[in-house]
């Protein structure tokens, strides 16, 4: 961890927080949720220059060819370099009818094997239907809602081949959806960033998604990728006094259970 993406505040020697009363513990969890919220906001802000570059490209070339997307190489590199401690991939994925010569294309660059960035030639999915990324939530949700989206954690067999959170933003030209820009954040990197502060919250604290899927947990029995079944995170997601403190409007939250925070 480190750089400007370091979660500020509680570091080692936070025994005082662990032993604090319930209100103090809740405040620490709220602060962590806030920090995660800010980091994710920053990652979306890092995507903005890429979104603008893609938008400009489609204005200059209403139906570009796949090769034209090579123009995006520099700005994608900048996106990757903005958060090297978190982001392992970034790029643009066009809608099926956006390019003149292709119905599917991934202008996606990764640093999973270290710099310099490499363009992804995806390991193939099981079929044309699955390679058709118009079924992947990181593509379908922004296409449908017109809003940014956080997908995961999930095994990204499509791109990074790893356990991943994917952030995507829709791109429009004259109101028409032309694709998404996005970045891949490795769950391992999120863990490095968040685990010390989760530990300070107590023996059973976790960063989860809105389905209760664990991103990082301090309980070995609720490992990364498992679903917390009790409490029912999905059912209590919008409950302000519930076990989860949401990270803004993102589908991520800090789980604090009542049994460990009695009286809260």
């Amino acid at each position, binding site marked *: 961890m480190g750089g400007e993406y370091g979660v500020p505040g509680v570091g080692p020697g936070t025994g005082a927080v662990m032993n604090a009363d319930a209100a103090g513990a809740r405040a620490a969890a709220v602060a962590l949720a806030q920090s995660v919220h800010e980091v994710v906001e920053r990652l979306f802000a890092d995507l903005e220059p890429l979104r603008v570059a893609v938008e400009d490209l489609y204005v200059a070339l209403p139906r570009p060819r796949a090769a034209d997307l090579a123009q995006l190489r520099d700005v994608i590199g900048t996106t990757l370099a903005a958060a090297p401690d978190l982001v392992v991939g970034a790029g643009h994925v066009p809608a099926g009818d956006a390019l003149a010569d292709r119905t599917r294309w991934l202008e996606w660059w990764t640093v999973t094997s270290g710099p310099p960035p490499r363009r992804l030639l*995806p390991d*193939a999915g099981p079929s044309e239907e699955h390679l058709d990324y118009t079924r992947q939530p990181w593509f379908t949700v922004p296409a449908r809602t017109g809003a940014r989206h956080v997908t995961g954690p*999930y*095994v990204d067999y499509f791109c990074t081949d790893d356990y991943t959170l994917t952030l995507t933003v829709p791109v429009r030209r004259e109101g028409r959806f032309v694709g998404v820009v996005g970045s891949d954040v490795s769950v391992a990197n999120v863990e490095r960033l968040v685990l010390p502060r989760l530990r300070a919250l107590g023996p059973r604290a976790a960063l989860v998604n809105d389905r209760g899927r664990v991103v990082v947990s301090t309980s070995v029995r609720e490992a990364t*990728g498992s679903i917390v079944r009790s409490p029912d995170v*999905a059912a209590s997601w919008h409950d302000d006094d519930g076990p989860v403190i949401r990270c803004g409007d993102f589908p991520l939250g800090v789980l604090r259970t009542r049994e460990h925070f009695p009286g809260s």
Partner: protein
Amino acid sequence: MRPLGAPGAPLARSTVFAPLDQLGRAEAVVRRLRDAITVGLLADGEPLPAEADLADLLGVATVTIREALVTLRSEGLVDTRRGRGGGSFVRHPVGVGLAAQRERLRSLTLAEIRDVGDHYTAIAGAAARLAAERSSPAEVEAVRDGLDGVSSAGPGGLHRVERAFHLEVAAATQSARLTRSEVLLQGEIGMLLWLAPDMDGAVGPARAAHGAILDAVRDADAARARALTEAHVQEAVERLAELRLAESDGR
């Protein structure tokens, strides 16, 4: 065990002394391009980038690309033409049916089929167990809907349906390693494993078996999900072994 330099082990010996890094890389390049071609990401007849550009894109040496192209040519997935307008072109496999795969099937021994079958049974069974432990019912239904949309039309239909199913189950484990193992094994044996003498007749039972496994996953019944999956894969392995036996009769 045979000593390294003994007669009868020329392949093993040459493999041992191949440059480590490049060896793995050529295989990785082959796998990526093969998968991209067989599932149609790269179109039939499409020119591949020049060797130097491919090397640059994939971050490997040009010699590695050359080596990978040799393999792909031998598999009939790439065509190289010389001279003006030459280069390497994608060739879609003309049929993934039994006839097209006979040559490959003949090259396999029954021992190899059993061995890869054991490996695949272990991976698929473990994946089903973990998927049952780690999936929410809603996710299972989303997978089911997605699979319903996978077309089984054409000679590669069974393969397509099976491959999609097993990959979804593997991804549902939330384990990147298990998913990679699944993809790797599918690439290695999938096309043969999901061959059937009667392709049209095989898709219905396959979908029914998948449905039963997904029911177990949805019910978070890890033991049942695993047992059903192992039986399902074992059935395919036995079918493949039967086909192999029939091949030897015909010669």
